[in-house]
């Protein structure tokens, strides 16, 4: 079914370990920076335009890397003719992996991205078996989440925009869900915030898709120093103290 992969990957019930990550929201809450639906909206908008855009661009750029190699559906073996360019695939993934690392200055955020990629990989291998996943894992055993989402959308035959929309949405839906759990905010109000972010989400997706065709060194690199610092503080200062989320 067209569009199913990005739908499943964006589902809050997808068993990829996403529910233990708050995208920095827990740290922001503990510092009193987010305490209401309004302040949550500002946090989410900032996250969408920075971390969300970077993730969306790298997910979109990963789609064509795997699109030549559709999921076999049943077998892990490499089909002939359609999928014989493992070296090219690997070097392209390696390039994207390095460029995404360079755009993620916080070690804690790099770790959170790899943790979610690794978790997603386990679920994805069962659902969309493809040798492309082996190529991605050959680059790093714990692939970055946006690269994996792009790779899966590619093997599932979805266009780059779907992969970009999936990760951009996850960049805000994860913290929004964490806010409901941490602050007891009205879930209807929080859900309405997500929907209000729709136009910003679409412009992030459009920017990600248009940038995805460029050389990977030219992919967007917006910075969010406060998010970087808070992600780092979350693991450094909260180690062994009150902490409900992994990031």
């Amino acid at each position, binding site marked *: 079914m067209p569009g199913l992969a990005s739908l499943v990957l964006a589902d809050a*019930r997808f068993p990829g370990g996403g*529910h233990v990550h708050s995208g920095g929201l827990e740290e922001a809450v503990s510092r009193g920076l987010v305490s209401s639906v309004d302040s949550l909206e500002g946090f989410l908008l900032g996250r969408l335009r920075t971390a969300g855009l970077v993730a969306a661009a790298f997910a979109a750029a990963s789609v064509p890397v795997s699109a030549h190699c559709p999921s076999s559906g049943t077998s892990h073996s490499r089909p002939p003719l359609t999928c014989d360019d493992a070296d090219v695939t690997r070097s392209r993934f390696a390039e994207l992996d390095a460029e995404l690392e360079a755009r993620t200055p916080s070690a804690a955020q790099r770790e959170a991205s790899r943790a979610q990629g*690794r978790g997603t990989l386990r679920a994805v291998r069962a659902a969309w078996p493809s040798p492309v996943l082996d190529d991605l894992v050959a680059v790093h055993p714990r692939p970055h989440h946006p690269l994996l989402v792009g790779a899966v959308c590619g093997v599932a035959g979805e266009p780059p925009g779907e992969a970009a929309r999936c990760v951009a949405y996850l960049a805000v839906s994860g913290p929004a869900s*964490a806010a409901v759990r941490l602050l007891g905010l009205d879930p209807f109000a929080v859900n309405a915030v997500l929907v209000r972010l729709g136009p910003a989400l679409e412009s992030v997706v459009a920017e990600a898709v248009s940038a995805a065709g460029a050389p990977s060194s030219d992919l967007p690199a917006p910075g969010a120093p406060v998010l970087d610092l808070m992600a780092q503080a979350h693991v450094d200062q*909260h180690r*062994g103290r009150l*902490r409900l989320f*992994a990031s």
Partner: protein
Amino acid sequence: MSGDHTHQHGPTGQHGHGHLVSFDPTESEPDHHAAPPAQGRALRIGIGGPVGSGKTALVAALARSLGERVRLAVVTNDIYTTEDADFLRRNAVLPPERVEAVQTGCCPHTAIRDDITANLDAIDTLEERFASRDGQGLELVLVESGGDNLTAVFSRGLVDAQIFVVDVAGGDKVPRKGGPGVTTADLLVINKTDLAPLVGADMDVMTGDARRIRGELPVITQSLVEDPSAGEVGAWVLDRLATRVAA
């Protein structure tokens, strides 16, 4: 079908596991399916139960009584921080490298049932750490859930067997309330029996209800004050290990 067949064939004509499939929701027959194949990995036993029922104390007792005979490690899911892991380390029950703590994003039941990724990652970390260290690997991993409610059970994708711990001080009606933990866990432990006279709990009611609800599944009553080694539960765990090695 020939007359000597007393069981049905599956839709493809193969022999099934020899049982008729029952859709009777009131039937509570023990799970007759074999445990997942070992494949050289450690046996995984989940320990769940309500808040304060004595899960961590049981894990500590098992670590003390089995630690010298069995190569074991522990994953804790405390909803707050790494409190349980710290308890186990501080009391020198287990060296720090044998304890991994996971964050559950405010949802302890999700982390052991719907999305087991964080726990699988922690188990993988432990298995890899010890496989590379002494080449012998782990024999047993105890996964302690965060304190939750009576509906929490471990996924069969995460553990091979599970122990559900309730306590006398939680009220002698708890077994009667049932729920999947009490009803289906491979072992039910009724803890803190030494407190029964103090809280007016009727042990006969508790064990009678438990046995009625659980059929042939075992129930152990214990007091870690009277037996700090948790001897009966330890014997059950060793029996599980032996059965698995023989299989």
